[in-house]
């Protein structure tokens, strides 16, 4: 059973269209139901652009993005918002929204135009804030939170959207090691179909079922972390030498970067 399927996707910003220079080309990717899939690649390789195609922001120039067999671009924006939730590095403008206000936005795709939040909505918001460990700050001003707390608020907003698919753009940015592990552990336990981009390859190796490697707008490898994360490939894609062995406690690959003397 597949949740997200991307088939032969090609995309480029409108400004570059005439030069026939594709920033994403021939992308084939899928996320199975309940699967946690990671996307890795160097800066500027197209990770964020690819995620944007998956949450119906960038319209593809060729190819298809579909969820549960439905082409996203044949559906209304609201349809995909009811099924796909996104956690980005994009924070609300800092004037006067409470944590609860920010999280409540996640209910938007499920509500009518003039409808307020009903009792069920409020309960869901409260439970979700408790689940991400922010139950006691729900009336605080969002702008006063720390980076890590903000990140968890945005996760809570995505969760109250009750999505079939969760898309995360570098979810562990701004987080200290403890919250990195807690957040990813929490995400894994949810059992949602998830597509997330990662900078930290060791985190990707520890938490993902499968990984895709993107370089220069093309997918160059995919498979389990053990299959994908080899020293040769890391050198090819990232241009750095690494020592890859097995994590002594858990069995997934462990990457140690080799610095020039």
């Amino acid at each position, binding site marked *: 059973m597949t949740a997200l399927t991307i088939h032969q996707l090609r995309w480029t910003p409108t400004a570059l269209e005439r030069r026939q220079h594709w920033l994403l080309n021939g992308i084939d990717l899928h996320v199975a139901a309940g699967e946690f899939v990671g996307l890795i690649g160097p800066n500027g390789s197209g990770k964020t652009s690819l995620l944007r195609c998956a949450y119906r922001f960038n319209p593809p120039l060729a190819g298809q993005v579909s969820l549960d067999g439905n082409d996203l671009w044949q559906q209304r*924006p609201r349809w995909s918002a009811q099924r796909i939730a996104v956690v980005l590095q*994009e924070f609300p403008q800092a004037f006067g929204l409470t944590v609860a206000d920010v999280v409540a*936005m996640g209910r938007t795709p499920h509500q009518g*135009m003039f409808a307020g939040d009903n009792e069920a909505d409020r309960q869901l918001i409260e439970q979700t804030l408790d689940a991400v460990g922010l139950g006691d700050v729900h009336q605080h001003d969002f702008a006063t939170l720390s980076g890590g707390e903000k990140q968890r608020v945005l996760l809570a907003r995505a969760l109250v959207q009750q999505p079939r698919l969760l898309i995360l753009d570098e979810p562990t940015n701004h987080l200290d090691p403890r919250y990195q592990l807690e957040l990813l552990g929490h995400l894994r336990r949810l059992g949602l179909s998830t597509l997330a981009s990662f900078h930290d390859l060791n985190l990707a190796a520890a938490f993902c079922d499968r990984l895709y490697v993107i370089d220069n707008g093309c997918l160059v490898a995919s498979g389990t972390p053990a299959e994908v994360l080899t020293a040769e490939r890391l050198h090819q894609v990232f241009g750095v030498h690494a020592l890859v062995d097995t994590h002594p406690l858990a069995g997934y690959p462990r990457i140690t970067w080799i610095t020039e003397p």
Partner: protein
Amino acid sequence: MPIRSVAAYRLLVLGLLGVLLVSCMTALAFGPASVPVSNVWGIVGEQLGLRSGGDWTQGQSRIVWLIRAPRVLLGALVGAGLALVGTALQAVTRNPLADPHLLGVSSGAALGAVLVVLFLGDFAGVFSLPLAAFIGALGSMTLVLAVANQQGRLSSERLLLAGVAVSFVLMALVNLLLYTGDQHASNSVMFWMLGGLGLARWEILWLPALCLLLGLLALLALARGLNALMSGEHTAVSLGFNVQAVRVQVFVCTALLTGVLVALSGAIGFVGLMLPHLARRLVGAEHRRLLPVSALLGGLFLVWVDVAARTLIAPQDLPIGIATAAIGGVFFIALLRRR
């Protein structure tokens, strides 16, 4: 700390409505001709058919009911409308300094006003100037949309820049016409541009009232979209909004409302810029809560500034635009210093 609980919010809105009502009644007592407050209440009561007769003259009754009452109500409507427009534009452009006059609508209205005063004359009686101003506002709105539009996409930065650019060009034209034009006509346009509520009469009040009501309803319907846009374009898309559509709807809605208000009262500054910030301090930035409070505060503010405009240099009227800028600016400086 902004108000958060539902009950406190309802109390605040009811309280503000009450204060606005009492303020409107009290404001009727101010003006060059003195009418005691008790007589004012009596006159209003008589006109509403609640009581008959009292110890006031026919003249006092006429001044209060036919001259002051529509003016006070127009002040409340214009203030509420401008604050509403400012609130929505600050969210949709993600710019806390956005105000109703920033996006070029008022300069278009000014150009329309200048053209009619200098070249056309009174083609529609007392309504010539407001009508021309509204047509000018529509024209500049279309121009801004056309300039900002980029292959069907409309970013808030481009909207802002297009508004400012169109504004400059149109104001250059206005100033050129005023500079080279007939002195007397120029003076009357200048006076209109500084803002005033002198045009108020009972026959026209339905228009700004209806526009304000429709504008409030439309913006309340878009309120979630405003919340989402404040969080950023990507977030708004991921929550199911058609961002371009929301932007165009908010822009057209606010431009039309501004056009009507500016046509009736000139370019009154400050209200649309600062009152939204005060409202945000009271109830936070969630727009379903913010919009009504912002409108109420705007109305309340302009009713009292108009009282000042009518009394400061009585028997002359101070243009209300000068009064809002002076009083509002000083008030805000005081607020900043206190924090």
